[in-house]
Structure formats: C-alpha cells, structure tokens
C-alpha cells in the first residue's frame, strides 16, 4: 500500500510556502511549508486549535493569507476565489458537514457538477437541446458518484433526512462530482461508528488507487491516520513540528510530547 505511493516522488501537486494567517493578532498558521505529492494520502494532524482547518480554508480560498503562497499544479492560487480554485481541481468537505439540507441527495451531488458544465442563462431559459443533453449528463454523473459512495437509493431524499454517516459520504460524493485532482477532507471520520470508519478507510484506499487523485486530510482518529496515510504532517500552534511516514511519526518523541502526550493527559 503506502510504499507504492511514496511521498519521495518529486511530483508535487500542492505546496505552500511560508503560509501565514493571522486572526486578531494571533497567528493561526505561522509560515507553514507543506508539500503534497501526486497520488498520496497526506494526513495533517495536531491538537485542537493547531491551525489545521485554517490551512484548509486558506488552500481552498475561503480565507486570504497574510503572507506566503499556495501553489497548485505549478500555479499560484493564493487569494483566488473559492469557486475558481474548485474549477482548477481542488474539492473539499467540512468538519461540521455542510450540505444543502433542503435539496435532495441527487441535487446535492449535481451541484458539484456545476463547475464542469456551462449552460448559460438563455439556454437554460429556453431549455435548448444542448442544455437538456448537458442536464442529463450531469444527472448521470451525479448518480454514478452517489452509487460510488453507496447512496443511490437515497437519491430523491432530502439531504437533511439521511443518517449522519450517509451525510458524510454524500458530502464526499459532492466533492468528487467537481472532478477534483486534490480532495481535501476535514475530519471525514468524525462522528462515524467503527464500521463506518472502516468502510471510509477502504473507500479512500480504493479511490486513490483508481483515479488520478491526491488526498489531503485532517484526522483525529489515529487508526485512520496510521492505516491509510503515506505521509503525516504534525502541526501545533500554527507551526509544523514534524513530518514523516506514519510509523516514524508514531514514535517521534517530539510529536508524542506535543500532541499524543498532551492528548493522553487529557483523556
């Protein structure tokens, strides 16, 4: 598994250089350098408040950084609007699931196809043949994504009415529908039961093998991190304190002290 997708490969998909984001004088992220390589699963870990989600928000364009650069596929995307970044090929999910609750599951995923379709105002108004073809195509693709995550039978249910675990998968399906090359997942296993977590892990493993896809994820569940990551980056107080293979990170005294140690004291 992990070895076949070595981090060492020089093919960088996403990198950040000196990334800094400040909130009211507090550096949430402090000159972070990050490199994500094509085809790997990279986990970003660290205690609560370490700045992981802020990194995601900067990468996906929701926040503009105070300093530093984000480079995706060789081009700077720093400060770009979120929808532009999605069209370039980065899709994400949220820590506290953000679906379109009063729309059907199918419509949720169809929304993901928005950036890959082009019907304009007039062709939508007059329902031109081209527009109808595109709509049908959008629906087919969305249906495929739904069955990929095993939710096709809920296609016509409202997103707010399906189970929590299914909502997590629906959000991933929506992200996949944007046809990303980098999938950014914010704590995908949070709130899932052990079986759902195992299913998620094998789903992500399958995903990374079958597609030209790279996955960047924030994760708290150490079983998930150790189980599927090729590379782990540890953050604390906005700073990268360590990175390496999962097994090395697991035994890194600095990490144990700063992160694992602290958490075990709490727990």
């Amino acid at each position, binding site marked *: 598994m992990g070895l076949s997708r070595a981090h060492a490969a020089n093919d960088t998909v996403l990198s950040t250089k000196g990334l800094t984001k400040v909130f009211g004088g507090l550096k949430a992220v402090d000159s972070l350098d990050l490199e994500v390589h094509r085809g790997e699963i990279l986990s970003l870990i660290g205690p609560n408040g370490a700045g992981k989600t802020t990194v995601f928000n900067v990468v*996906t*364009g*929701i926040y503009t950084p105070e300093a530093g650069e984000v480079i995706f596929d060789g081009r700077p995307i720093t400060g770009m*609007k*979120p*929808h532009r970044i*999605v*069209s370039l090929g980065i*899709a*994400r999910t*949220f820590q506290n699931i*953000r*679906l*379109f*609750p*009063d*729309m*059907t599951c*199918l*419509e949720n995923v*169809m*929304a*993901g*196809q*928005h*950036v890959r*379709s082009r*019907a304009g*105002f007039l062709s*939508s*108004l*007059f*329902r031109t043949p081209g*527009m109808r073809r*595109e*709509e049908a195509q*959008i*629906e087919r693709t969305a249906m495929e994504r739904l069955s990929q995550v095993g939710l096709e039978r809920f296609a*016509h*249910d*409202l997103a*707010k*009415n399906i189970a929590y675990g299914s909502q997590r998968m629906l959000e991933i399906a*929506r*992200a996949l529908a*944007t046809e990303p090359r980098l999938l950014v997942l914010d704590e995908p296993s949070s709130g899932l039961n052990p079986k759902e977590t195992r299913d998620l892990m094998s789903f992500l493993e399958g995903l990374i093998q079958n597609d030209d896809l790279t996955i960047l994820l924030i994760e708290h569940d150490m079983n998930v991190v150790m189980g599927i990551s090729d590379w782990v980056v540890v953050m604390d107080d906005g700073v990268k304190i360590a990175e390496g293979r999962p097994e090395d990170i697991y035994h890194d005294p600095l990490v144990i002290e700063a992160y694992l140690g602290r958490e075990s004291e709490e727990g």
Partner: protein
Amino acid sequence: MRDLQNLSGGGLRSARLLAPLAFACLVTAYPFAVSDYLIDIGFFFGIYALLGLSLNIVLGEVGLFDLGHAGFYAIGAYVTAVLNTRYQVPVLVLMPVSCLAAALFAYLVCSPIIHLKGDYLCIVTIGMGEIVRLALINNPFDLTGGPNGVFGIDFPRVGNLLVVDSSIEYYFLVWITVGVSIAGLVSLQHSRIGRAWNCIREDAVAAQATGINVRAYKLLAFVLGAALAGAAGNIYASKLMCVSPESFTFWESCLMFCIVLIGGMGSIPGVIVGAAFISLFPEIFRPFAMYRMLVFGSIMIVMMMVRPGGFWPRKRGAVTLRPLMEDTADGAV
C-alpha cells in the same frame, strides 16, 4: 421537468400538471363570467403575482432579504411613464426598456453591496427603495412630477390595430406576462442556474466550496428579479395611466415579502397563493371596512403559526417514491 421526464408513470405526470392546468383554465374563463370591477381585481392579483414571482427569485430562490423591491417596480413604472408621456414611445416597446432599466439599476446598485450578509443587506435594500421613492418625490430634473407623479400614459397598442384599453384586455396582458414568466422560471428552477441559486440559499459557504460563483449568481438573481418587477411597473403604469411615488412605498415592498413567505420560499404555486391572499383578501373583506386590516394582520400571524414553511412549499425529489419521508420532512420544518 426533470422529474417528469424521469419518472415513467403517466399518472404522476398528469397529477403534477393537473393543478396548473386547472388554474390556467380558471384564469382564462374568469373574465368572461364577471363584471369589469371583478376583472380589475383579477388584474391586480396578476400584478401582485408578477411582483411576487420577481421577488421570489431574490428572496425565495437565493434567500436574500430584499425589502426594497418596490424600488425596481418604481423604476419600471416611471421609465414607462416618462418616456411615453414625453417622447411618445409606445408602451409595448417600453416594456423591454423598463425591464432593462430596472435590471441595469439593480446591477449598478447591488454590485457594491452584494457581499453584505442577511439583515445588513436587508437594510441596504430598504434604503435603496426609500432613496428611489424620495428621489421621485423630489422631482429631479423636473422629470418625475414630484409627489403628484406623471399623468396621461397611453394604452399599450400596436398602431391602431390592437389597442389594450379595456379591463379584460389589461387582464390578459398581465396574466399572459405572468404565464410566460412562470414558464421561464420553471425552466430556470430545473437548470444548473436554479440549482446554484438554491445552493446559495441553503449554505453560501458550501456553495462556494462546491464551485459556485456566489457573487455572480446573487447578482443575476437581483438583475432578473428587478427586470420582472420592471415589467410589472410598465403594465401597472399604463393601466392606471398615471404613476405617483405613493404606489412604491416601503409598505409595498413588505407586501411582496409577505407574498413569498406566505406562499412558501422558492415555490411558484406558493407565490400565486400568496399573491391571491394579499390582493384578494382586502377586496373580499371590504364589507368589514375598518376591521379588515386588523383581521389581515392577525391572519398573517396565525398563518405563520400553522404553516411556517408557507402555504404551498416547493416539493423536492420524487414525492411518489418515498411519500412518508416527504411528509415527515414537511412536518419537521
């Protein structure tokens, strides 16, 4: 449309089309059966339906609190009034002109404020609507006739062949406009544009993260909503043959707001029901004279207690496949 195509059951198709068809028949037959006075009431029902449809794009589909919509309505009415009375431009030609003028105004005014959230956007639209009304009262460049407004607007006409000058003709003018608008809006609802609008209403941050250009689609909603309100203004101006600022008060914007919410956000049949309530209620209860508005206010309150999601909320998904789930969903709102 999509649902209709996908679900093979012919029974479902007819069930979904039955209500609109019955309504269309009723609207067509109505003016042949009643007096001119009642036809005029039907006309104003149509105007409110058009205004409701136009605000529904902004408020219902995208969830933007627009309490200044009467401003766009006023622009449409005054563009028609001024250009017709001063330069004798035919009223029918002025309909698209009024739409464009209102749309352009919406684009210019909303561009700098479209990023404001919720209630802040709401107050700015209120301010915009009030600025329009006050400006009309103040008679800039001697164009708008001040508090008295503009008189002597012509009938919509094509030469002398077709002159819309009777109650029944006006009635059909407004309802044909409503019908065409509904057809267009249903198409948009079932396109990527309608979907993008709804996504923004449900969760603007998630919509952005899904690749939707939130700013552009919000602006589109305002521009389109304003254009439809402009059309309503055009018809209204020629029907009354005069326009004055007091027809475009904050109160009028509030009525439009209520039409959408009483009917159900983003629901086209809902808008029709809401417009019927707003326009027909005061007429039906005219015998109660002084007390009718008291009852009107109370009914608005009671309506929101009984059906907070509106009288006829938009149904999504295949109602037939999982009817129980749908019902519980409605009840939980």
